[in-house]
């Protein structure tokens, strides 16, 4: 009897803990949603009303008056999708060399690729800014996109390589005997078999680029060339007290990320477990 009591008690404690932690993680979301639907007069009352008497969408409309939201949205979508294409194609291509082909010095070069991950971006940031300035790439999207077409980053190469190595080598041998070229094997066999890895890399890239701030901040000073992150930063700078509008803008910017999270949760969680890349 006492043993059962103890079991029930343990379960109750577990649930209490889980629920209070849920509150810590979820309450800010509800608070923000609530603020974004209130008029300014209703925001500054104490104690705060969690459910506004009347849902007010004026804050959302106001965002479009303050910043060229649709232009920024288009720019963000363009930069993000081009980068995803660049990284997915390029990192899988290079990973093919490390996972599926034999050539002298391969493993040493691979270790070197991994070592390059340690270099802080600050070291290369200034010379690259000068380089892109000199070739007239400032205020274009090229500095944000083009570098990703060359290898797609050490971490993504690593992730792809791990996945490719799990593909049975009989498949390659059979295709080679049939006279298929290495490019053919890469494109027709390896890529279609690696959809989960491609999706993981794509989702991680989306999160990284969609939220990127320092890149656009350095390279895009022209107001109409900005991304959503820059637009939101501009709003924060100009309107520190119009919380309703600021929260509405923040929610609109994170909506795509939330949608992608719910649709691709599996890839997301896998990617996060493997990388933890976030900043």
């Amino acid at each position, binding site marked *: 009897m006492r043993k059962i009591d103890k079991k029930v008690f343990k379960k109750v404690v577990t649930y209490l803990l889980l629920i209070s932690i*849920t509150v810590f993680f979820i309450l800010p979301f509800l608070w923000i949603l609530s603020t974004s639907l209130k008029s300014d007069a209703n925001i500054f009352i104490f104690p705060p009303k969690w459910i506004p008497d009347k849902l007010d969408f004026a804050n959302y409309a106001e965002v479009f008056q303050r910043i060229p939201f649709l232009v920024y949205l288009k720019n963000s979508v363009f930069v993000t999708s081009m980068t995803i294409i660049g990284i997915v194609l390029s990192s899988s291509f290079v990973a093919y060399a490390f996972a599926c*082909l034999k050539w002298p010095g391969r493993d040493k070069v691979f270790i070197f690729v991994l070592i390059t991950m340690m270099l*802080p971006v600050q*070291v290369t940031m200034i010379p690259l800014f000068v380089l892109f300035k000199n070739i007239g790439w400032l205020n274009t999207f090229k500095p944000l996109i083009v570098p990703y077409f060359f290898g797609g980053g050490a971490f993504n190469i690593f992730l792809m390589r791990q996945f490719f190595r799990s593909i049975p080598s009989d498949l390659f041998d059979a295709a080679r005997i049939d006279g298929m070229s*290495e490019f053919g094997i890469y494109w027709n066999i390896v890529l279609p078999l690696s959809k989960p890895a491609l999706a993981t890399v794509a989702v991680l890239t989306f999160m990284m680029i969609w939220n990127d*701030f320092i890149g656009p901040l350095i390279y895009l000073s022209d107001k109409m060339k900005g991304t959503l992150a820059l637009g939101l930063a501009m709003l924060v700078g100009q309107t520190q007290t119009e919380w309703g509008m600021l929260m509405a803008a923040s929610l609109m910017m994170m909506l795509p990320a939330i949608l992608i999270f719910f649709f691709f949760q599996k890839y997301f969680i896998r990617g996060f477990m493997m990388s933890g890349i*976030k900043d």
Partner: protein
Amino acid sequence: MKRKQALLGFVFVAPWVIGFLIFGLYPIIKSIYFSLCQYDVLRIPQFIGIKNYTDLLFEDKYFWKSVWNTLFYTAVRTPMCILGSLLLAVLVNKAVKGMKIFRTTFFMPSIITGVVLSSLWLWILNPQYGLINSMLAFFGLHGPLWLQSTTWSKPAIILMSLWSIGGGRMLVFLAAIQGIPKTLYEVAELDGGGWWTKFRYITVPMISPVIFLWSVIEVIFSFQVFTEAYIMTQGGPLNSTLFYNLYLYMKAFDDFSMGYASALAWLLLVLTLVVTLIQFKISKKYVHYQN
């Protein structure tokens, strides 16, 4: 056949090699050179030897302030993040109904970063009407000024970062914990070991390599803090959130002291390496590798 494969290997790896030469090696060499120059982008760089480095180390009080702020942020945030997410992982490893929903919920904030995160928390941390101080007021407590106080500005940013990263790290540790053989816990239970005994003498030692790896990564991430301070405080109040990378950015892109900022970048690399080496030294005492 062999020669053909070798040749193709070089072809497939070529994009990375070209990219590394242009976007890696070339800027690294340039950056070393810039750090030895006075350079404002408009005029050609003037070679001044190690003056940037000596100025930083011996003259620049903002440099030391930013080092202190960054080390404080790192030293408080890293252990809290590791311990907090480890305990979360232990909790969500329990087999109770609805656990999947709890895990997803805890992970949700991890998709919010950068500018959006900063904007949301500016409001949450608002001293008068923000979520946190409203809740404290509900219990009759008077909350601090958070980002407007020199004492509370760094803890405020740490709190925000824990909210946003905790669930993501929890998943990492959860994966590690699920790899521990169940028999170990069964033996401990037979010996009458409670929750703490199992955590302290089985869970922690068994996953200590993962804990160590993430301590190293977390420190490197902490050194990179930038966007939050740029958006929320611009380094204030009274430089209490002037973090290293914020100072570097201001030197490079507000003052256009590109040489000085390059020297800052190299000192950051040195600082990171030193701290990482110290971590490796300490790790020998607690990390337990299985053979």
